[in-house]
């Protein structure tokens, strides 16, 4: 279907998305085993946004993220061991245990500061766009939830980018489609009405469809690079049933890749999410039915991912807590 993805790239994308999922499953298990304080906002259910969008970025492209940042880190190829160690508050973590779950960053992979304030990073994405435009190479990608449109700064950020033609991709993960956990209260009929009213090109895409997101982002990035302009993409997501919990559990069970070809075994309280919305299962099933993947191939991918996560876990657990006497370091440059 997507001319721009080779079958090797399609499998690599699925593997990255599965790593994002298994990473979060490890985060849940580590919290349950009381290996750290265990308050998180997990990325489960968003893999078909961060995965295909961020896997396309180059070394000069800058991303800014939010409280729901774990998947963004893994999608851009951050070391999962270092990311897990950070969430566990260990010295071997991405930020030496200082930032934790909410403030992970890895500038070597193109991340700026990650904020846990709603609207905390969207403005910094504008600055990254300004810098890259001045420097002549690279673009900025603002990652944020629908809730950010509640905050006034989102309007200021969009307006500024539009007025000054800054190369910024606004990638909104809208998980407030329906249900009990709505994270925004927008009076506009459509979320994209807001950027559209500021003369910004907008797109809406199904956030559980990895290749649709890949293609929409691919075209947007090409245009942003060529024309230096902002583009706003709203990805629409069904909220993962465990996403509102501050101490998340394996709400929909540990991911079972065999459900990609055996739907009859989907069960449990949240079977509907697994059947209709789980982006990993959806993409694996699609690759199978299109002949891009085989069952054995999928099992082999999963085995590799599990091995990678076992190594990540071992690294994180072996890393000690940072020594108390370093508490005042790195306040100033």
């Amino acid at each position, binding site marked *: 279907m997507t001319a721009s993805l080779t079958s090797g790239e399609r499998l690599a994308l699925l593997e990255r998305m599965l790593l994002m999922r298994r990473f979060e499953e490890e985060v849940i298990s580590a919290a349950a085993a009381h290996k750290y304080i265990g308050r998180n906002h997990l990325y489960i259910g968003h893999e078909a946004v961060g995965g295909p969008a961020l896997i396309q970025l180059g070394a000069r492209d800058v991303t800014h993220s939010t409280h729901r940042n774990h998947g963004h880190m893994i999608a851009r190829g951050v070391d999962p061991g270092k990311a897990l160690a950070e969430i566990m508050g260990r010295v071997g973590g991405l930020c030496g245990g*200082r930032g934790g779950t909410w403030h992970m960053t890895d500038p070597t992979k193109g991340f700026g500061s990650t904020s846990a304030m709603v609207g905390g990073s969207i403005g910094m994405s504008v600055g990254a766009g300004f810098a890259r435009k001045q420097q002549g190479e690279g673009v900025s990608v603002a990652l944020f939830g629908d809730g950010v449109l509640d905050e006034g700064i989102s309007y200021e950020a969009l307006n500024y980018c539009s007025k000054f033609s800054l190369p910024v991709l606004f990638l909104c993960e809208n998980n407030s489609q329906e249900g009990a956990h709505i994270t925004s209260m927008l009076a506009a009929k459509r979320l994209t009405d807001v950027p559209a009213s500021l003369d910004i090109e907008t797109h809406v895409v199904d956030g559980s469809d990895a290749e649709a997101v890949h293609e929409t982002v691919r075209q947007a990035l090409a245009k942003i690079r060529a024309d230096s302009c902002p583009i706003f993409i709203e990805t629409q997501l069904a909220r993962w049933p465990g996403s509102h919990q501050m101490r998340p559990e394996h709400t929909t069970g540990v991911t079972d890749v065999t459900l990609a070809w055996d739907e009859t075994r989907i069960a449990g309280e949240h079977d509907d999410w697994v059947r209709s919305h789980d982006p990993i299962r959806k993409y694996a099933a699609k690759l199978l039915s299109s002949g891009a993947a085989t069952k054995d191939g999928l099992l082999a991918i999963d085995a590799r991912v599990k091995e990678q996560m076992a190594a990540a876990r071992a690294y994180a657990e072996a890393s000690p807590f940072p020594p108390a006497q370093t508490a005042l370091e790195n306040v100033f440059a």
Partner: protein
Amino acid sequence: MARKTFATGMLDALGHSLQQDPSVAVFGAWSFIVGRGLPAEQEEAFFEKYGDRLIDPPTSESVIAAMATGAAVCGMRPFVNFGTSSFAFEAWNQIINETGNARFMSNGQLKAPLVFHMYCGIRGGGAAQHSQSPQSMFANAPGLELVMPSTPADAQGLLRTAIKSDNPTIFLTHTKLLQWMGDTPDGDFATPFGKADVKRAGRDITVVATSLMVREALTAAETLAKEGIEIEIVDPRTIVPLDTAAICASVEKTGRLLVAEEAVATCSIASEIITIVAEHALHALKAPPVRVARPSAPLAYAPTLEKVVTPDAEKIVAAVRRMLTK
């Protein structure tokens, strides 16, 4: 006397206020009321009785602060629950430039009777952005009353006064105090602002402590009592207005002053209290005053880094011992 938690004490004060004054309206009601330890039927009763005055706004702190101020000037008495205090930083301009200045700039023609409630302090794993202690930032802005209760009774009585007050009031609840149990007077009552409370009498050292630090000082007092050291714990309860007379009177008695505060020491409430004592009761001091507060660095996520900078009973005990052996 009734035994209740800090959280339910505040809810009782809010309930009495809503019942007696139709101009009271709550912004950010759900997270203030739900899951705070009320029996389910009382929780429901809140929403049944006062539903039209319990509002859950968008995540728009700036306009919430501004509209509360605008509504207050027009005769309402808004109670705003911002959640974590750092969220209120989004509304800094509104709170400092508009709310705090409204009365003065109008030469007393306007008043803004409202409460800005926030959860503050080091909560455990909150990292730099979710562990803020903004008390001295607010104390530094003229025109805002500042309340920092430490017990369920004070939480209830001071919140009642805050809602009745004709001034804008910042009400800081330390997250770790929410489930603290205590004896509370029966029925509806209000505790006056500007009246310190001696939480424990003692002869050797005056320990001025606010909010969670009162609890830490009480724990420290137990340890020190076994060594024959009696600390006097003075809880100002409100920082603006501040009961300087009570603090100075205690220092006149003990001759020594320690201020325990969770915020960064630089330009803190602790700095202010020591300055006031230096100005008014320097003659009474037998030793230099001491601050037990945080060094000037953002708070880290890792538990080892968090613990070493967090003011607590242990650090109060150590500081008291040092003061007395010098």
